[in-house]
């Protein structure tokens, strides 16, 4: 999945070539902006200004519009994510089953709030809406894997395991 990316991105970064290949492969029009942003976030892990202006040029869309789209959708992020991104579900089912307490435990273990990354670049924390695993509520995803029936204790244990 997404690679950690904490340093600045230079124009000769090989991932730009991969992105360009995707654009050339039938996505070179403004209407493919969202598909291209999906691919870019897969490659870079987030969408910094360098990447946005690259896409703006390639698709002939004003940079302001690219920024407008990136900031409109929840899925796109302007900030780098950790090696193990944690997404705590705050959907209805999870919320009533105590997702708030689980989130608080993650915050405490990592010393960060949702939207932030730990200084060592290992973890970042986000909250999300129902991911469709309500039967396992409360759930969180860590590096793309779903962990269900979480408690404060299992949240703590998971962090220790990933560390």
């Amino acid at each position: 999945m997404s690679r950690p990316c904490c340093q600045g991105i230079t124009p000769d970064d090989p991932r730009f070539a991969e992105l360009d290949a995707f654009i050339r492969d039938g996505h070179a029009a403004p209407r493919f902006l969202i598909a291209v942003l999906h691919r870019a976030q897969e490659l870079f892990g987030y969408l910094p200004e360098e990447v946005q202006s690259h896409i703006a040029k390639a698709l002939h869309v004003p940079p302001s519009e690219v920024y407008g789209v990136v900031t409109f959708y929840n899925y796109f992020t302007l900030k780098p994510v950790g090696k193990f991104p944690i997404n705590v579900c705050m959907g209805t089912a999870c919320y009533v089953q105590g997702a708030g307490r689980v989130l608080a435990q993650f915050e405490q273990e990592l010393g960060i709030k949702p939207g932030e990354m730990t200084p060592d670049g290992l973890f970042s924390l986000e909250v999300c809406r129902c991911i469709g695993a309500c039967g396992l509520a409360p759930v969180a995803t860590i590096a793309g894997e779903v962990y269900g029936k979480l408690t404060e204790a299992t949240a703590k244990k998971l962090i220790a395991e990933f560390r």
Partner: protein
Amino acid sequence: MQFEPVLTKGIGKVDLTNIDVYEAQGGYQALRKALTSMEPQAIVEEVKKANLRGRGGAGFPAGVKWGFLPNDGRPRYLTVNADESEPGTCNNRTLIYANPHQLIEGIIITAFANRITQSFIYIRGEFKRGAEILMKAIEDARKKGYVGQNILGTGFSQEITVHRGASAYICGEESALLNSLEGRRGEPRVKPPFPAVVGLYGCPTIINNVETISNVPHIVKNGWEWYTKITANPSNPKSCGPKLFTVSGCVQRPGNYELPMGVTLREVIETAGGLRPGRKLKAVQPGGSSTPMLTPEHLDVPMDFESVAAAGSLLGTAAVIVYDDTVDLVDVALYWTRFYSHESCGQCTPCREGTHWLERVFARIKAGGGTEGDLKMIADMQTQMAGTTICVLSDAAVTFPVSLLKLFPEELERYINRVKEVRPA
């Protein structure tokens, strides 16, 4: 009546994502029938007579909507709304993940009936796996000659493109969805004109929910008369057919259940295992976060569009959210208002400002700092926020607070009174 599942038949028993299994269960026979023996107009008529109502929430008759497409030579598009983001609703998910060919068969028949050659499935960004399942199913269908050029040698061609959204509730609103599909910010457009007249790239466009389209093959295969008989409330001929209910909240077995239109609320809750032992029912939202609450006296209301409306709420997406006596409804209100203030797209002032006000009011009440004036403000906000904006998200945001104020004022007052107690005289 005896009810056999229609849309979810075989799910959990056989692997319907495998096209051979789907065909062995009778799949793609409706497609064959439609394309080789029916006139497009006859299919539209069949769906009209079956009275297939839109399952995306508003219940608009699908055949009637299709009949609105102008015949002016412009290209036409079909867009399937798979954005499913109404809290508590996850029936589209089951239909996509576990029975993708039923949807694809429905798309091809609908496209044929309306002389459309390009269709889109707009699927919410979170359903990444769902998008992959659909893309694979489309390729499998192509190998069998059901998708692509000259389908079954009839000269009819159909391409289906899967488009992934990127997490924004508002993109489920059909005109926001169209903007998003065009690569832009998902902001709703003013309606009318409806998408049927001015839709994708300014062309006539049909938008239907996943569940709506999944019904189409069955109507074509079995006929409209069969379809209109599927109901648990025959006294209301306006709603019929199988319906997926997503039951969540304080029940023992939350999940998706396929039942006939018109089953009572009681039966729906019982199908989901009923309440936990010792608990009492407090309230139910019958159709998602934007529908007013029903109370225990409504347990015998038939779950169809008209009966739920007569009881003072809406069938909506049939996302039945159950609250028992342990639930603090003020907490629920805070949760919903937070949701809507986050999801307002910000174009209309009543919605952009109103949703944030509501959130702040409920945060204040919950924290114990609410006043009698806040209660009056909630009532006022309805007149300001409902019916004054581009889309109905604004109306939806104020629905639960108003319902709470009307049905359970004591729950709100409890918080207000608590403050009076702690305040020094």
